[in-house]
């Protein structure tokens, strides 16, 4: 059999750090990158006698995300303890949700190659993150290991998809879409490098037209779109080859090794954890008033999918452009503000996607907020191009200066004398000079060498240091040449 005979079945478990100032069950800060164990207390260190108290904000953020992906919020839900031993987990159990999660039964619409598909979401639940182990040297040979509990207790929401994804590309598209949603909602910063968003993937292959799912393999800890793509491609290939060779797929957990570009076995089902879940006795069940959920629903912003559609329909952007502009709320807001000041959406989108994003360190809200060129500034620059004050080419130089200095376009153009020469009298004199200086070229032109015109245009631009309005130069040459 060839790979084409198998259907790929993928489900993703996405973990997103919630953007609350304090941890899930205590008052410690959640800031990334602090010195080890400086953001800890008896509760998040799992000290004997300490007790968790739910941070209400994490529940609110979870509900926001749940509603955005069409989940049903369980007004009655509760926390459970999930047990396994690992030193990065202070209590050797994680407070999570099991039988009664915060929300269930939602969906995310993805678009791939112009085609739309709906991916089911099984559940969304809240849980605490674990700490981090720091090894002295390489893990295998480390002389000692230390634990940093700063991350322990940072609130996470886990969004579990149904096994509806049919290719690595779809998986990436789903992850991108989900990321855009949580970032838009302001509940997660979407930063995959810092681990704010990461995922595990369940992959299996089955013969086409067979309803029963194949044996699944879980791939852990995928923390970039590229890793998701590569790991899934690798795993699909590996399983296909194994099945072709008549082997059975072992149900196991595998780890993506981004250095060697392959997945490696972590543990098989026989050694799988028995998590021994039971309801967390230290926390009473959450009993959410229906009104509080309605209130959160009413406060939801326009979501990326709706906004994307509007950008295409109302602003005439391509789906691709709209998609890029809707990766974050800040960027989409920037675009709309610029369009309000300069109602040419296509041009605004081009400038943002080609020029602005090249300069900015990222497309996240933080980068947009720190952008030295405000939307009105970009609009001002484009207005100067439109009214012929500067050429499109010159506008790029002005843009770079604006980005470096924060000055507006008009001041830069005025100070540096960059305005186009668009005065027919002034430019006519220059054209006359150029024609007088190049009789041979005029002869060539008369002899039928049309390229000679381009040379003359170039000469006019040269003598005006590029400030001549090219359209006007062409018109003047067209008028004057035959008369020479």
């Amino acid at each position, binding site marked *: 059999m060839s790979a084409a005979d198998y259907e790929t079945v993928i489900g993703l478990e996405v973990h997103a750090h919630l953007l609350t100032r304090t941890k899930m069950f205590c008052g410690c800060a959640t800031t990334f990158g602090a010195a080890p164990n400086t953001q800890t207390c008896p509760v998040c260190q799992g*000290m004997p006698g300490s007790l968790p108290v739910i941070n209400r904000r994490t529940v609110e953020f979870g509900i926001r995300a749940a509603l955005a992906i069409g989940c049903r919020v369980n007004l009655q839900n509760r926390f459970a*303890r999930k047990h396994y031993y690992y030193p990065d987990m202070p209590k050797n159990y994680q407070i999570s949700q099991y039988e009664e999660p915060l929300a269930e039964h939602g969906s995310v619409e993805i678009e791939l190659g112009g085609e739309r598909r709906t991916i089911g979401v099984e559940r969304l639940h809240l849980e605490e993150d674990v700490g981090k182990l720091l090894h002295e040297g390489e893990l295998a040979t480390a002389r000692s290991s230390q634990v940093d509990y700063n991350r322990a207790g940072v609130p996470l929401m886990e969004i579990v998809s149904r096994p509806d994804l049919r290719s690595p590309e779809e998986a990436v598209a789903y992850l991108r879409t989900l990321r855009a949603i949580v970032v838009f909602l302001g509940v997660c910063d979407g930063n995959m490098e810092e681990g704010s968003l990461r995922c595990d993937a369940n992959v299996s292959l089955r013969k086409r037209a067979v309803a029963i799912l194949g044996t699944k393999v879980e791939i852990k800890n995928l923390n970039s779109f590229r890793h998701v793509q590569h790991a899934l491609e690798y795993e699909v290939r590996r399983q296909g080859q194994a099945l072709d060779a008549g082997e059975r797929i072992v149900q196991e957990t595998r780890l993506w090794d981004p250095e060697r570009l392959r997945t490696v076995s972590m543990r098989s089902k026989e050694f799988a954890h028995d998590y021994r879940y039971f309801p967390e006795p*230290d926390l009473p069940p959450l009993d959410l008033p229906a009104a509080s959920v309605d209130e959160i629903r009413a406060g939801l912003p326009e979501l990326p999918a709706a906004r994307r559609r509007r950008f295409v329909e109302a602003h005439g952007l391509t789906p691709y452009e709209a998609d890029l502009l809707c990766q974050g709320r800040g960027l989409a807001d920037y675009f709309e503000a610029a369009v309000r000041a300069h109602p040419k959406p296509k041009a605004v989108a081009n400038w943002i996607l080609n020029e602005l994003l090249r300069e900015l360190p990222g497309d996240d809200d933080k980068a947009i907020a720190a952008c030295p060129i405000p939307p009105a500034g970009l609009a001002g620059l484009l207005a100067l191009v439109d009214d012929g004050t500067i050429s499109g080419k010159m506008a790029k130089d002005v843009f770079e200066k604006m980005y470096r200095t924060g000055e507006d376009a008009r001041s830069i153009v005025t100070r540096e004398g960059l305005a186009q020469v668009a005065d027919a009298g002034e430019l006519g004199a220059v054209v006359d000079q150029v024609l007088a200086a190049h009789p041979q070229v005029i002869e060539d032109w008369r002899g039928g060498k049309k390229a000679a015109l381009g040379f003359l245009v170039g000469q006019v631009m040269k003598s005006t240091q590029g400030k001549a309005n090219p359209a006007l130069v062409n018109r003047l040459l067209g008028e004057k040449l035959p008369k020479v």
Partner: protein
Amino acid sequence: MLAALTLDALGARFRAGEATPSDAARDHLARIEAHDPRVRAFVAVTRDLALAQAAEADARFKAGKPLGPLDGVPIALKDLFCTRGIRTAVGSKILETFVPPYDCTAYQRLRAAGAVLLGKLNMDEFAMGSSTENSAYFTTRNPWDLDRVPGGSSGGSSAAVAADLAVATLGTDTGGSIRQPAAFCGIVGLKPTYGRVSRYGMVAFASSLDQAGPFTKTVADTARVLQVIAGADPMDSTAAAVPVPDYMAGLGGGVKGLRIGIPREYFIDGMDPEVERAVRAAVEVLRGLGARTEEVSLPHTEYGLAAYYLIGPAEASSNLARYDGVKYGLRASGGRDLVEMSSKTRAAGFGREVQRRIMLGTYALSAGYHDAYYGQAQRVRTLVARDFQRAFQDVDAIVAPTTPGVAFKVGEKADPLQMYLNDVFTVPVSLAGLPGISVPAGFTREGLPIGVQVVGRAYDEATVLRVAHAYEQATDWHTRKPALEAAPR
């Protein structure tokens, strides 16, 4: 001698200027020095701290601004209440070096009321036991007979009050660990409603059952202490925001017209006939005081113990998972990797009973057994709770024996199952989360104390205290004291 006084009587002396908190602290410290070498209630005596705290109380009384009835009163805590800077070993080798960086809520509240800390009290390891014989350190002795156990797991807490080594102590009760030792030592011990007192800073055994409560010489003293430690706590979501009434105000209300239920299932074959006789006599006293007594039925009582010995260990197996040698307490040497380090630490640090319960609990929660054990136990728990709800539709309080027998000899109950039977009358009340108090109800011919238990509706400690107080005031069992001879110097 000040150490012989009740909390109320001592407070009266302070207010009258006849004694100072420092006098009381010194008196108790001297008595601890004289008698604790035999009783062995204390695992640590915080002498300097006690004297410093007492001196502060002296100043408040001198300035005419005492904090209240507990100001300057010498107390002590079971060694599972976290105390900042003071080792809290929980009766275990695994926490032998554990010095908490924070105070538990109950101690914070006692301190805010001016109480003076004499020290930390012995207990069965992780509160698992009924005799203190499971303490990793030593066995506490019953002041009424030093060959006998003081009960447990809060045996240090009960022995200290019975021997006048502290005016009041705190213990914890998961399945009877306050009421049983109070009965064995002839004093008052109250397990409040689950959720009445904050568990923050109380090292957990079984989170859905653990509850802190006082040991005192009288019911009134218990009301005083409960008044201070009860109430909601932002650090404990299971501490309920149910208003705390003025317990002293209702204490003297008497039992006239009160309906009191006597559960049929609490008088069983094999119980000590002297205990049964004493409890039935106590019921007669209450009837004589005007209470209407009637028999009630709690039909699922016999399944309580089995459910308890699944739920308790299941939660314990989870709560005790954190003791792995990584963060605090013991770390056994010689482990070549993480798994070995943790298993060696846990093997060396936990005693036999704790290991037994961790294994029981782990098993009860395991895939494939979870529903048959943990799940079934939870269903039984619901039935037991419903028994009480039904009974409390007809009666205002239930009166029953605290334990089937009296204090046994050290080493007498080697079989864990024999030991577990001690909790048969206290466990159902714990499963239902209800308040229960044990008050002295007489002595056996051998001179060993007997306790009677009064159980009330959830959060109705007021009625429990009122019934117990009425009975106590009509009898003089609580005024008797064990004859202790000072240890030779």
